[in-house]
């Protein structure tokens, strides 16, 4: 277990600034759009990474992804609020609150039971959304035009660039804060809890409380990601925000990324987005074959995810999964 290095903050800053500059001056709009969606999902995957380092995998984090997305959408539809400084914190807080409450239950379970309990909760939300006309049922509804400090635009290109820069800024801030967290005493309890809960207890800290805190953190980040995804896509519906396949995608990207760094989810998520897009272009009715095959290759040959390749290339030892 390597504890985090200080060079990571500098690397994250350089990386995100480089992506932002490339996006504004070089990259085509279609790729900007891909990065926007990928980074929105990556925010959620950072949360799953914290859980994974703790030895926990959730098959139901679409619950929080959907909660974040629907919070943003409902604030727009019911109150006409499109201000991202309101909607995104609200999405984060709503998911964190539900995560806090459900955390009292899930923190008692480990391994497959933890994973499936989360799936069960997400399916309940999916069922409620599908059956509730007032929440758009299966069709969902549109998201209010986003504004920043009251300023919005109808120009699609400007809007795309603004959202792209926004997701880069939030992505950078999230990555830096989570990196700092992982380097803190509480952050060191991720792998410590995974390795030996008994010793954690007998050092004077509650393993259950440590797990609860990390669960709330992952819920909050997933809600933030869902909120940003709703703004990016301009629409919410149960199928694309809360269905169990969304949870599966989040786990897929977590494995693809690897737990070695907080930067990994952003890289892994972009690879996933591009892979899915090109797989769909290539074989529209069997694109899952290519995506699934890739996951198999990752599990067999790269259990540390794409980050392990990058760290190997850089001559550094990655963190074990």
């Amino acid at each position, binding site marked *: *277990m390597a*504890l985090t290095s200080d060079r990571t903050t500098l690397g994250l800053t350089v990386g995100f600034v480089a992506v932002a500059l490339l996006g504004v001056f070089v990259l085509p709009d279609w790729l900007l759009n891909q990065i926007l969606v990928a980074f929105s999902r990556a925010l959620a995957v950072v949360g799953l990474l914290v859980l994974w380092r703790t030895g926990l995998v959730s098959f139901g984090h679409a619950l929080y992804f959907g909660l974040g997305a629907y919070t943003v959408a409902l604030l727009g539809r019911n109150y006409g609020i499109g201000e991202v400084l309101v909607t995104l914190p609200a999405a984060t807080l709503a998911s964190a609150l539900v995560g806090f409450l459900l955390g009292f239950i899930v923190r008692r379970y480990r391994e497959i039971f933890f994973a499936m309990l989360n799936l069960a909760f997400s399916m309940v939300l999916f069922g409620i959304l599908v059956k509730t006309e007032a929440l758009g049922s299966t069709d969902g509804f549109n998201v209010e035009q986003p504004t920043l400090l009251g300023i919005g635009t109808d120009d699609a290109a400007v809007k795309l660039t603004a959202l792209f820069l926004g997701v880069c800024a939030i992505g950078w801030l999230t990555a830096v804060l989570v990196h*700092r*967290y992982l*380097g*803190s*005493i*509480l*952050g*060191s*309890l991720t*792998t*410590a809890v*995974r*390795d*030996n809960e*008994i*010793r*954690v*207890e*007998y*050092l*004077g*800290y*509650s393993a259950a409380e440590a797990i609860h805190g990390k669960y709330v953190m992952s819920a909050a980040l997933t809600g933030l990601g869902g909120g940003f995804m709703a703004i990016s896509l301009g629409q919410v519906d149960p199928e694309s925000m809360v269905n169990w396949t969304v949870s599966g995608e989040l786990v897929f990207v977590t494995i693809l990324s690897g737990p070695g760094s907080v930067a990994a989810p952003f890289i892994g998520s972009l690879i996933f987005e591009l892979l899915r897009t090109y797989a769909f272009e290539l074989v529209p009715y069997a694109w899952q074959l290519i995506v699934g095959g890739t996951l198999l290759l990752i599990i067999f040959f790269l259990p540390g995810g794409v980050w392990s390749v990058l760290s190997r290339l850089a001559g550094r030892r990655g963190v*074990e999964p």
Partner: protein
Amino acid sequence: MSAILETVGVNKTFGAVTAARDINVSVAKHEIVGIIGANGAGKTTFVNMVTGWLPPSTGRIRFDGRDITGLAPRKITRLGICRSFQVAQVFMTATVFDNLMIALGIADAHGLGVLLPLRVRAREERADAILRRYQMQDYRDQPASTLPQGIRKLLDIAMAMVAQPKVLLLDEPTSGISVEEKFPLMDIVMGALKEEGVTVLFVEHDMEIVSRYVSRVLAFYQGEIICDAPPAEALADPKVKEFVIGDDLHNQTLLQAGALQDGAQEVSDARG
């Protein structure tokens, strides 16, 4: 001398099985107490109750004048009772140094202090000092999963001592360790514990170890304490001979050779 740890009428039952029966023990500050008994005699149950892993069915446990009966392990640890385990409980994927850093971090952390960086120079220096005290410098950057059994046990004990407890319970510190390693390991441990001035209770099967290091022996049999006396006296006790030493061929051989009484007498003489 005032009692730092006291159990009053402690019982523990698991269904029809009684694992501890009317345990009344009073341990004074700085005492080193050996807990002996055959497998299943109730030694580890006693340790588990004192450290909060198992709540007693009846009876009270007091520590430093405070009732700690039924408190969670982490609360008892924070109050000043720590323990090591028969099977070393360490963070297997972490290096020896990182194990100590995490232990120090938790010991230092209060309230929002848990959000402060783990790696700070002062804490790293303390971790290195602990490594030197327990003679583990050569294993500093080695993952715990690759350590020899004896070093892993040392690390387990060192981690338990990080919070500077008033009472330390060691559950079979030499189990699974070769005969050649036993005494060097115990010399390191007891030397470090003596420096810290901590009260120690340790469970042990090897009477040679017991007779050399403890000032008092609690002998368990079928959940009861059948003898509570200094080592020389305890090891000569007919009940202890029959129910504790009699079960163990190694100890029986030593007893017949007079090694245990000699060792116990040496300790007794040294303490005056």
